């Protein structure tokens, strides 16, 4: 064999593997070892390569930029499933009065800690309407916008993450915003970023605070003073004037609704069709507090749990029409302050669930066509708040089945 034998761990016993292989009856004299076989296979004549280093650099650069955006949005270093980030519908359970009310993050000045890696000068949008009313007071999950039309190549993977970014760790203040990202079918990069930013006097662009890089979906426009950016008038979007911003080959279309929300749409790939696509998407975009049906409900959560919906991310909400697999991730917190702990609920069609992640504990069930798992880093941490166990929480999760017509935006019901 080769140098691998010399490097092998002393506990390893390569001789046994090689002996096993040597005992194989397939022409052992021609294939003395697995390495020889693999090297022979690798030497086979191949069709012309389709690899393109320049394309990899171009796509990789966009991916790098998007990761910076996600880090900026989430304040963490893992992009993972949350290729898109959003802020919406945080709520805190308060059973003392029999009703739920918002957590602090639902205020108009939800705070987010970010790690902005670039700065940009932005124009400060004029507030031309009342601040958007808080949503989710009844634990109804709502999103600030829904797509009415999308390019054909963006139909397979859609990431939305309405959630709560009330990470009150100091730093910059963001207005409550909703963001969504749509990954192109090339699987290389999210293709469309959408953000809806309600008007607020705490808009960081107006307070001189450090800004997120362009493309985050938060910034409405870029200044024309940037060396690599330009700005020009855009088409009328549902009766509202808009602005095109071009930054590093990526177009962003921004406008304000009559309610004062600032909408930004950007396309991740600098294709020639970007402006036409974005204009079409903008025309068909539904803006407003739109209920987001989910396939599960949580019932019977004890008041002592102080449960709060941290974040909701769903992949492929249009599954069923695209053939792709739907999945939903919900992050919950229990307790508050220094004693708060987290748990997660994952939902996927039966047979597609990912189970309990390595290093975590939890429980899973299959119910009404859905794989549902409740997981946490440590069972005890959650059970301190939620008696008696994660299994009890799982038992409170009710499947609404795979028929989206039966789904409900009311995530928490029947509390006690």
């Amino acid at each position: 064999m080769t140098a691998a034998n010399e490097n092998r761990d002393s506990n390893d016993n390569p001789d046994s593997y090689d002996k096993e292989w040597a005992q194989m009856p397939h022409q052992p004299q021609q294939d003395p070892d697995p390495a020889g076989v693999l090297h022979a296979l690798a030497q086979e004549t191949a069709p012309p390569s389709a690899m393109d280093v320049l394309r990899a650099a171009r796509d990789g650069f966009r991916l790098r930029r998007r990761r910076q955006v996600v880090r900026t949005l989430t304040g963490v270093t893992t992009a993972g499933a949350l290729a898109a980030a959003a802020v919406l519908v945080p709520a805190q359970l308060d059973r003392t009065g029999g009703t739920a009310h918002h957590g602090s993050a639902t205020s108009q000045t939800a705070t987010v800690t970010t790690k902005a890696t670039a700065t940009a000068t932005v124009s400060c949008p004029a507030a031309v309407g009342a601040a958007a009313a808080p949503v989710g007071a009844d634990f109804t999950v709502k999103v600030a916008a829904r797509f009415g039309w999308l390019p054909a190549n963006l139909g397979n993977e859609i990431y939305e993450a309405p959630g709560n970014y009330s990470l009150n760790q100091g730093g910059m203040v963001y207005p409550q915003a909703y963001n969504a990202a749509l990954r192109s079918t090339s699987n290389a990069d999210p293709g469309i970023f959408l953000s809806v930013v309600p008007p607020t006097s705490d808009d960081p662009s107006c307070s001189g605070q450090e800004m997120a890089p362009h493309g985050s979906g938060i910034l409405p426009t870029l200044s024309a003073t940037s060396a690599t950016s330009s700005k020009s008038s855009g088409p009328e979007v549902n009766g509202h004037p808009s602005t095109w911003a071009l930054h590093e080959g990526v177009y962003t279309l921004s406008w304000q609704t009559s309610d004062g929300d600032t909408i930004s749409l950007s396309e991740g790939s600098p294709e020639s069709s970007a402006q036409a696509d974005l204009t079409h998407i903008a025309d068909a975009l539904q803006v407003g507090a739109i209920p987001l049906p989910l396939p599960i409900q949580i019932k019977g959560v004890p008041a002592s749990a102080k449960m709060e919906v941290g974040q909701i991310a769903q992949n492929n909400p249009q599954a069923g029409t695209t053939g792709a697999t739907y999945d939903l991730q919900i992050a919950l917190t229990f307790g508050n302050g220094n004693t708060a702990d987290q748990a997660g609920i994952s939902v996927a069609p039966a047979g597609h669930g990912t189970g309990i992640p390595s290093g975590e504990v939890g429980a899973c069930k299959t119910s009404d066509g859905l794989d549902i798992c409740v997981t946490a880093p440590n069972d005890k941490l959650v059970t301190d708040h939620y008696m008696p166990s994660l299994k009890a929480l799982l038992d409170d999760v009710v499947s609404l089945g795979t028929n989206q017509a039966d789904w409900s935006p009311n995530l928490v019901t029947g509390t006690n």
Partner: protein
Amino acid sequence: MAHHIPDGDFVDYMTGRSLWLRRVAYLLCQDWHQADDLAQTAMTKLYAQWPRARAFDHLDAYLRTILVNTYLSETRKPWWRRLASHEEVGADLPAATVDLDTSLELRDALAALPPRQRATIVLRYYCDLSVQQTAEELGCSQGTVKSNTSRGLVALRLRLESQNEVTA
């Protein structure tokens, strides 16, 4: 429209590694077209990390880890399919490198292995990695590498025995 100008050292590096990367990808998936896709994705991910990765001491290992992780991730997706038929693969084979029947048998046997076992076998026996190095690249324990290696080889043997019996 502005376009990003690739880093020259990345282009230089990948120019020298493309063939190797493509071959490893091919051994993982046994299809040249999918191998191109895997290698392309690995290159893209590497470039996304290039400002940091260019200083790595073991850049080849880092790229290989990206490739293997991409492969394992792809195999978990529902649309992952082996698209190449035997006829298509056979048309790509040269006459002189290895015996055609043997090559097809070995490829089929390798393709029959579960993805992680296949990745383990490729890393151990094609990339010449130790158990420890393989465990690090796959993100698993050395014991898992050992068991995957043993099971993979046994599965290969059984598969080849079965094919030989059919041929006989």
